[in-house]
C-alpha cells in the first residue's frame, strides 16, 4: 500500500479502491470540520449555550420568581393565542395555495409563487408599517374602524395580522414539492373509482403530504411564536395587554431586569430546541417517504 502515497501516475492499479485516495490526506477533512465547528461555535453555539447558562446561573429560583409575574404570564398567554389562531388559518391558505399551484398549469405560475414568498423578503418592520397604514387611525379603514369602535392597531387583531403575514408562506412552500413528487396517479385512480373531492383529499392526499405538512406547521409555529419586528410595530407594547413573549424579553432587558429577560428567553429557546428536534425527525420521514 506504500505506493498509494507516491503519485497520481500509480493510480490505475489502485482504481478499484478510490476511497482510499481520498482518505490519504486525512488532515484536510479534519481542518475543515474544525473550522466548521469553530465558526458555528462563535456565531450559533456559544450564544445559544449562553441563554441556558445565564438563565440557570442562579438555579431555578429566578425563573420560578419570574413565572409568578402577571405580565410574564400574560405574555405567554398572548404568544400562545397568536399561534393558535394564526396556525389553522395559514394551514388552510397554505394547503389551498399548494393545491392550486401544484395541480394546475397556468401562465404566471412562477409569479404567483414569488408573490407567496414575498413575506420572506419584506422586512418585518415594513410589514408592521403596512398594517398600521391600513388599519391605523389615519389609515384606509381607520375612520370606519374608529366609528365602529373596533381596535386593530395597538391591539390583539393587529398583532395577529402581523403574525399571519410573516408566517404565511411556510406551509405552501413545504407542501408544493411533496405534491409535485406525488404525481396525480393515485388521485385519478380514486376518482375513477367514484371518490369525490373531499374523499380524495382526506384519504389520498393528506396521508401522502402529512410529513411535509407537519414540517410546514412546525416552521409556521416557530415563526408565529417568535416574531418580533412586525408584532412590535403594531402592538404598542403595552405591558400585560399587547406584549407577546419576544416583546417581553426586549422590554425587561431594556429595563435592566436581565434575569427576567433570560427566564423568558429560556422558554423561547426551549421552543427552538423542540422545533429543531421535530424538524430533524420530520425531515427524515419526508426523505424516507420520497424514496
Amino acid at each position, binding site marked *: 500500500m506504500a505506493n498509494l502515497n507516491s503519485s497520481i501516475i500509480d493510480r490505475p492499479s489502485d482504481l478499484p479502491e478510490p476511497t482510499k485516495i481520498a482518505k490519504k490526506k486525512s488532515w484536510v477533512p479534519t481542518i475543515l470540520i474544525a473550522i466548521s465547528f469553530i465558526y458555528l461555535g462563535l456565531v450559533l453555539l456559544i450564544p445559544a449555550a449562553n441563554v441556558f447558562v445565564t438563565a440557570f446561573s442562579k438555579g431555578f429560583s429566578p425563573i420560578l420568581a419570574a413565572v409568578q409575574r402577571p405580565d410574564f404570564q400574560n405574555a405567554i398567554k398572548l404568544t400562545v393565542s397568536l399561534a393558535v389562531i394564526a396556525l389553522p388559518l395559514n394551514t388552510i391558505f397554505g394547503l389551498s395555495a399548494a393545491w392550486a399551484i401544484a395541480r394546475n398549469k397556468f401562465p404566471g405560475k412562477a409569479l404567483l409563487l414569488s408573490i407567496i414568498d414575498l413575506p420572506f423578503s419584506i422586512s418585518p418592520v*415594513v410589514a408592521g408599517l403596512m398594517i398600521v397604514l391600513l388599519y391605523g387611525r389615519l389609515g384606509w379603514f381607520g375612520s370606519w374602524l374608529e366609528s365602529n369602535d373596533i381596535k386593530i392597531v395597538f391591539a390583539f387583531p393587529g398583532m395577529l395580522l402581523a403574525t399571519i403575514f410573516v408566517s404565511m408562506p411556510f406551509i405552501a412552500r413545504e407542501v408544493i414539492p411533496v405534491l409535485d413528487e406525488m404525481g396525480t396517479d393515485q388521485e385519478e385512480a380514486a376518482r375513477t373509482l367514484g371518490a369525490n373531492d373531499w374523499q380524495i383529499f382526506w384519504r389520498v392526499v393528506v396521508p401522502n403530504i402529512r410529513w411535509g405538512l407537519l414540517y410546514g406547521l412546525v416552521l409556521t409555529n416557530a415563526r408565529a411564536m417568535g416574531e418580533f419586528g412586525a408584532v412590535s410595530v403594531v402592538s404598542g407594547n403595552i405591558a400585560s395587554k399587547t406584549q407577546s413573549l419576544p416583546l417581553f424579553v426586549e422590554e425587561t432587558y431594556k429595563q435592566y431586569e436581565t434575569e427576567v429577560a433570560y427566564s423568558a428567553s429560556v422558554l423561547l429557546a426551549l421552543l427552538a430546541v423542540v422545533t429543531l428536534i421535530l*424538524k430533524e425527525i420530520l425531515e427524515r420521514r419526508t426523505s424516507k417517504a420520497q424514496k
Partner: protein
Amino acid sequence: MVTTPSAITNRKQRSNPFLKLLGKIPWTWVITFTYLAFLLILPIAALLTKAATEPLESFWKTATSPLALSSYEITFVTAFAAAAVNGIFGTLIAWVLVRYEFFGKRFLEAVVDLPFALPTAVAGLTLATVYSEKGWIGSMVAPFGIKIAFTRIGVWIAMMFISLPFIVRTVQPVLTELEKEIEEAAWSLGASKLQTFIQVILPPLTPAILTGVALGFSRAVGEYGSTVIIASNTPFRDLITPILIFQRLEQYDYVGATVLGTVMLGISFVSLLAINLLQAWSKRYG
C-alpha cells in the same frame, strides 16, 4: 359526478369563455386569492398609495436625507459583508456536512437551522451578552480595543447569525447531487485537489452559493429583532434602516416611515427578482 370530468376539461382548454370559467373557479383558488388579496396585496397597496400621495420632490428629499443615506449604507454594506462571509463559511459547512462522516455530524446538521427556530429577540439578547465587554467572547477581544456589542460589528454578527442557514441550506442539496465521478476523473487526469475544487466543483456550485448569499442578504437587510438589541442605535454609527423606520413611527412621523418603507420594499422586490433569476440559472445545472 358529471361535473367533475367537465371541470377538468375546462381547466385544460384555455380557450373557454371567461364567464363560464368564473362560475367554476375551484374553491382552492378562491381561498388562495382572497387570502393573498386581504393579507398581502392590500397592505402593500396601502403603503404604496400612501407613498404616492407624497409629492415626488419631498419624497426624494426624505428618502435621501443624510440620516436616511447613512442608514442605507450601514444596512446594505453590513448585510452584504455578513452574507459574503457566510457565503464562504456556509459553503464550507455544507461541504463538510455532505462529504465527511464525523462525530457530532447530526448535531451540527440540526444546529445549522437554529436561526430559523430561535426567536430573533432571544438571539439579540444572547449575542449582546456574549459579545459585550464582559461576555464570553467580547471579553477576549476587549484587550485589543475591539468593541463588538453596541457597535456596527455587533450588527454584523447578528446579521451573520440570521443569514447563515440560508447559504448552507441552498448549497447543500446542489452539493449532494454533484457527481463524485467528475471529481475523480479530474484527479486521475492529474489535477490537484485545489485545481479540482476551483475548476470542477466550484462552477456548478456558484449559482447556488450566489442564491444563498442573496437570500441571506435579503433577510439580513430587513432584520430588526436581533439588531435592535445588539446595536446602540446611534444615528450615523450603527442605526440601520428598519430601526430608523421604527423610530419614525414612534415619533408619529408616518410620512417619513412610509418613504423609508417604500425604499425598503423596492429593495425587497429587486432582491426577490435577483433570487428568482439566480435560481433559474442554477436549475440549468441541475
